[in-house]
């Protein structure tokens, strides 16, 4: 009969109108993201051995690091920058890291006002406690 489909549709919408609410209230309730979520990167500078494998693994030349050799002829990390604006967040660099110094993390509140801020100084970032723990103010 013509109109059966229309009535069916009306019954579905009225059922949903009184049905439960699915919204996650984000700024008030922070979501619990899976541990594997790739939203931003975090570095533990103490672990980094400046081997440069991450640079080679990266598809898009995101990582810029400089190192110096100390007296024992061991490389010591000086600066570690990530050009976040070019990053794919693919995770290939973290897979390549032999000491797991570079890790992915779940911080997703990364919006900034200026483009220069997208050049992340990873050493400075690692010192901000809130970043590594995955929580922002």
């Amino acid at each position, binding site marked *: 009969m*013509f*109109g*059966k*489909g*229309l009535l*069916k*549709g009306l*019954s*579905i*919408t009225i059922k*949903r109108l009184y049905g439960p609410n*699915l919204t996650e209230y984000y700024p008030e309730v922070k979501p619990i*993201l*899976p541990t*594997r*979520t*790739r939203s931003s990167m975090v570095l533990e500078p103490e672990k980094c051995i400046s081997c440069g494998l991450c640079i080679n*693994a*990266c*598809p898009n030349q995101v990582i810029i690091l400089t190192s110096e050799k100390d007296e024992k002829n061991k490389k010591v990390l000086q600066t570690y920058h990530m050009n976040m604006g070019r990053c*794919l*967040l*693919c*995770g*290939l660099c973290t*897979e390549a890291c032999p000491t797991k110094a570079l890790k*992915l993390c779940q911080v997703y509140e990364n919006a900034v006002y200026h483009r220069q801020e997208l050049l992340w100084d990873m050493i400075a970032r690692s010192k901000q406690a809130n970043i590594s723990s995955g929580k922002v103010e």
Partner: protein
Amino acid sequence: MMIEGTQEYSLNMGPQHPSTHGVFRMVVHLDGEVVTKVEPKIGYLHRGLEKMAESRTYTQFIPYTDRLDYLAGPHNSLGYVQAVEKLMDTEVPERAEYLRIIFAELGRIASHLVMIASGSLDISGWTPWSYCFRDRERILDLFEMTAGNRMTPNYFRIGGVSQDVPEEFMPALKSFLEDMPEMIEEYYGIFFGNEIAQSRMKSVGILPKELAENLLITGANLRASGVQYDVRKAEPYGIYDRFDFEIPVLYGCDTYDRHFIRLLEIQESKKIIEQAYKDIPAGPVMTKVPKVLKPPVGKVYHRVENPKGEMGWYIVSNGSTKPARVRIRTGAFVNVQMLPEIVKGWKIQDLVTIFASMDLVLGEVDK
């Protein structure tokens, strides 16, 4: 000057228009509201992926494949990694094969859901749109808990998958599969079964079988025109030959069938995932591959059945770490050509539904 009689005029739709699902442009020639001619113009999202592949190693290009058809990322990567594996003659562990199938088919469901959603949105059905996106979230959650990203998982690797699924994955997958019949019923009730929607779509935009073959149309659009052809059956890749599923085929050749076949395919994908879920073995997910991949000199052409059509990967290796040429044959790019053929004589409103029924993703059209 007086112009006597009626006059045709041209209307420029796009590249930024609500009905084009991205940056697609059509120059529509109209007589009143009736379409006389359409010229599709593409390239507004051309990113030069083929060129970029030549300056990246084989592994480094995998994340880029996700961004081709961004609605069904895993299936693109599947085609690419399988092509490279063919070139290198790599064996993939059993468990990884099953995981790949599960992910690829989940991607297909997600992609078809977006297609149904945008198809209904194009005839102003906001509520079906919301419901489809609501259920798509659950698939994206599965992707995220396993691979770490919602839309571009970058999960497959040459020689397996990047990591095993977490333990909460399987229960979540099971509950999703259990809820699917109810979801499908809801989409049918609110969109496909609605008489107004049917009157909008039935016998509109006919693409006859012969024309479809001549235009080299592939994928669900071809199957909605009465050709039972699917690469998963015709030339099974991965372990698709182990599963028991059917290729839905419809003979209406119209917009409604092109929409409806997606709903049928969702059901078939569900069957595949259910079987894979039951049979999945334990074991490693990654085989031993050298750190630096150097496939031998050779060429390979590998085809997969992407949700949008057949995707072909033609990879030419010159023995170095970077491919000499990666050619991506995308289904949606070739399928664009059906638009000018089937909209003639229909109204501008039908143009919108016909366009939606073709299921184009501009990332795949423009590469």
